[in-house]
């Protein structure tokens, strides 16, 4: 079944950054933010907005002007630029909820030194066209936000029994799910789940291919 293999490859390359090479689950980037920023859905949404706001413009800057900045100053420039952007974005984020910066703590400022940003600008943006870099930045931020929001929904519902601040009917409330140790465990399980899914799809494809070969296409 060469066609389905080709479809799979195409689908994977089109969703590179969201499903195929998810920066958090497969790449292992931005882990502390994925663990500590997912204690409630509001935090997760705030961090996703911050991610979009920092990664996308910086990929554009890196692909156009990055070559001209000397090597030892490059990362410092990106981080300063990201910090400036975060200062600007903090006004709409503050509108989500009054106590959002208290509950986010230091993890909002840590988005300025986001490893997704540092890694993708160094390895991809320098030798790509501006459009490709921006699209890559959008994809990575989308993947990051998806993972964070799903984790935050589960953790908030099980841990506090609320969703976006409003109480929800749950069977059991485990307050210790909001502690960092459970974040690590849950993130590990999500990584395992993602790998398991991709393994399952690949093995199905190989099985179909072998079956097709044996039947003699």
């Amino acid at each position: 079944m060469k066609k389905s293999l080709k479809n799979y490859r195409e689908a994977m390359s089109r969703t590179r950054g969201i499903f195929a090479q998810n920066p958090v689950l497969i790449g292992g980037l931005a882990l502390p933010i994925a663990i500590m920023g997912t204690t409630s859905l509001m935090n997760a949404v705030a961090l996703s907005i911050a991610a979009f706001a920092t990664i996308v413009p910086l990929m554009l800057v890196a692909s156009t002007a990055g070559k001209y900045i000397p090597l030892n100053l490059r990362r410092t420039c990106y981080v300063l630029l990201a910090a400036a952007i975060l200062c600007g974005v903090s006004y709409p984020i503050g509108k989500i909820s009054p106590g959002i910066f208290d509950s986010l703590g230091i993890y909002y400022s840590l988005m300025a030194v986001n490893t997704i940003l540092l890694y993708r600008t160094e390895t991809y943006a320098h030798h790509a066209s501006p459009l490709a870099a921006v699209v890559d930045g959008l994809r990575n931020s989308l993947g990051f936000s998806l993972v964070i929001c799903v984790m935050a929904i589960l953790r908030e519902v099980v841990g506090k029994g609320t969703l976006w601040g409003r109480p929800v009917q749950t069977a059991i409330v485990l307050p210790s799910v909001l502690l960092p140790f459970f974040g690590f465990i849950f993130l590990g399980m999500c990584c395992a789940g993602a790998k398991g899914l991709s393994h399952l799809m690949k093995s199905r494809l190989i099985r179909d291919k072998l079956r097709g070969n044996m039947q003699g296409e």
Partner: protein
Amino acid sequence: MKLTHRFPPHIRSRENNVTVMGDAVLALLPLYFMACFFYGPRAAALGILSVLVCFVSDLLCQKLAGRKIGVIDLSPVVTGLIIPLLLPASIPYSIVVVADLFAILVIKQPFGGLGQNIFNPAAGGLAFVTITWPNLVFRYTAPFEKLPLFGEITARLVASPAYQLKMGGIPYRDFTDMLFGNFPGPMGATNILVLATCLIFLVVRKSANGKAALAFLGTVTVFAFVFPRIDGARLQSVFYELCSGILLFGVVFFLNDPATSPKREASKIIYAAIAGAVTMLYRYFGGFEEGMVFAILLMNAFAWGIDMCCEQWISRERRKRLEKKSEKL
């Protein structure tokens, strides 16, 4: 004659996996008997539920992982029997189920299952439950109170001697009461004499290491003697430290857990000594009144490292000895 080919040695000892785990189960049953004697049939019901949940979830996980199940192995039964013994008799059934599921589904099976787990599953399940519901886990009923099998618990809940020690008080209990378990505490961890007998049984059956147990108890005694929590009374402090909380239970069942402790005898002794010091530090400066489960989990992370260091040191000594011997010849 149809002969099979096997690798040497051609005689094997009569022990197998089932008997090794069966020793641990046999050592736990007297504790259940004593718990039922003090707290009624609720103890047995908690134990049976816990064993069922552990067993079924372990079987499910093994089927998911695609492993062939040759013979029924007893290790989830041991985990299931240990967890309720460290909780008060008045604990709701759902909490025991949560502890069991966490122990098997998060601590044991994702790391590889039997023999490959890094952390002790029972200690992990208990740690999770301790953090989530500390007010339920550390409030015990006095012995010989009638507890209903199902439904709401209306008995009076008191604090154990471990809490009194942490608050700086002196638990005034009779000497024989402390030894026979006639004081409020975790269901299976109060019967000091029965636990000592179980330790001797396991040492004779070679499932437990007597030297490691002595190292642990020695470290705890020295700590309690030199820094007593009861001002002025050193021996009394030593006695209460050894009898309160889950210290002796941890020595018998957590320190000698096969998969999570180091393998060499020298490393086991070092591991036990450090675990004793860490347990006492958790008791003195930790947030909860009994921090032994956290100490065990912390030491489990270092078990491999201690083993590697001991191996390096022992092999260096051995090579030096062999060189000296070959020089003499």
